[in-house]
């Protein structure tokens, strides 16, 4: 599944439980405090905290406020299960450091099957 959208880069490790409101997708800590990840290509270094994450994202999806795709340095099992349960295209372990390459606001094309992402517009 190829998706396109605007990147939102969270510089800190992220917990889907506690760090985001599942009703509106608004993040409450760090780089994007006060902004919603709804329909964004959500980029963060790695996950932390509660293993409730897949349920939080499933709720976000039901409330139509989930991100379009997830990109991170390394997806642990919690992020993998977020992707599998909510069918959210998710990629990790890029050749270059994803946290260096992508900036908030970049327009990105995510193609998990090919294994590439493309920055279409800065």
């Amino acid at each position, binding site marked *: 599944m190829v998706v396109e959208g605007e990147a939102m880069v969270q510089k800190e*490790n992220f917990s889907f*439980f*506690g*760090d985001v*409101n599942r009703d509106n997708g608004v993040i*409450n*800590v760090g780089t994007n405090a006060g902004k919603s990840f709804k329909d964004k290509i959500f980029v963060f270094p*790695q*996950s*932390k*905290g*509660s*293993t*409730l*994450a*897949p*349920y939080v994202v*499933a709720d976000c999806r*039901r409330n139509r406020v989930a991100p379009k795709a997830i990109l991170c340095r*390394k*997806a*642990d*099992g*919690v*992020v*993998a*299960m*977020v*992707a*599998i*349960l909510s069918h959210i295209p998710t990629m990790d372990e890029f050749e270059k450091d994803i946290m260096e390459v992508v900036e908030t606001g970049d327009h990105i094309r995510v193609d998990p099957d090919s294994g590439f992402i493309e920055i279409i517009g800065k």
Partner: protein
Amino acid sequence: MKLTDEERMMLEGKYGTGTAKAMDMVVKWAEVYGAEKLVNVTNTHTSPGEPIEWLKEISEGAKARTYSTVHPFPIDRIRWEKQGIKRAWVENMNPYWEECIVYYKKLGMIPNFTCCPYMVGNVPLFRSYTNFFGSEAVLLTNSYFGSRNPRVGGPACLLSALTGKAPYEGLMVEENRFGEILFEPDPALKMETFNYGDLGAFGYYVGMVAQERVTVIHGIKKRLDFEAFKYLTAPMATSGSVALCHIVGTTPEALTLEQAFGPRKPQETVVVGEKEMKEMWGKLNTTDSDDVDLVCLGCPHLSIPELKELAALLEGKKIKDGKRLFIGVGDDMLAIAKKMDLDRIIEKSGAMLLTGLCNGPLTPWDHMVDKPKVVATNSAKAAHYIYAGSGMTVDVRFGSTEDCINSVITGKFVDTGRWTS
């Protein structure tokens, strides 16, 4: 990936359509990590709520193939009125929970709603494969019991329950279990004298620095009991995502420092001293108000030794009017406590024993009749999630069990600890 005949038959639907769907997801999960095979999981612990359509689908013709227990809900479903949760919210949520419970019973899972299932029968054996839900349960099974438990999101635990399988990857593999980062307490801390609050602050720091790495702690001059271990490790999966923490002299894969690291060398050695303890204490205390409305204990759920301690602290005392003390335990643990009359001593003080709930971290603060302004707790994990989970609308006082309890008896929180400057 190689599948056994049994696994292939599960995938092909010979064990029902639900099992086939669950197996398909296990295979996808295995493919994400390039696992070469699946392993047999004996014990699981799963979330009390799954997306209902999904639960319905994978339950079709399925059954639990492991010893399987269920995690707590956000509220006490029996005593919610006493807990002060608004009726409208409970009536809105209850049908969904009830529906989930029907499936759990049908699947042959034990719906005991505790975050410490190993205290009431679901005991992982050393070197067995398990899949427990809950960031703290992951740490405990891996570290204290030495079972092989992946750190993976909730739904995966149900997949393992229904198939009895998990991918052979990550912490399931022996060679991935050796230490990566070493923490040493500054001897001046006298860590062996730490109370639960002190241990939590220490663990909160460890998690922040270690993040996902296999953690080793060396230099604690006594063997930690189960309770101390709980308070020390739970926050490591709150400020970080530690899934395995070896404590030299306590945990089974760390009889010695050499054993804990095996062929690996520590990437970093971190000394934790007074400065770090004070910094964490400051973070976990989000306010300096001494006017505490509510004390939350029982994150993770309390054991009999802890309930005995509470009974001793509360015997003959009275909780001040307008103040509340909520104590979270599993139903089965309360049944044992009743046999010892501990419940009577504790509740005579005005404290409330609540069961089947995640007391603090999951409390629906905005749906309380009388939402507290300041909550005190002895659990660093609870302190973090009460503040974050309430959208920073509930402030936290963090301290020892005694300081928390005294705050609702005297009406004033006095920090008798060593970490306030």
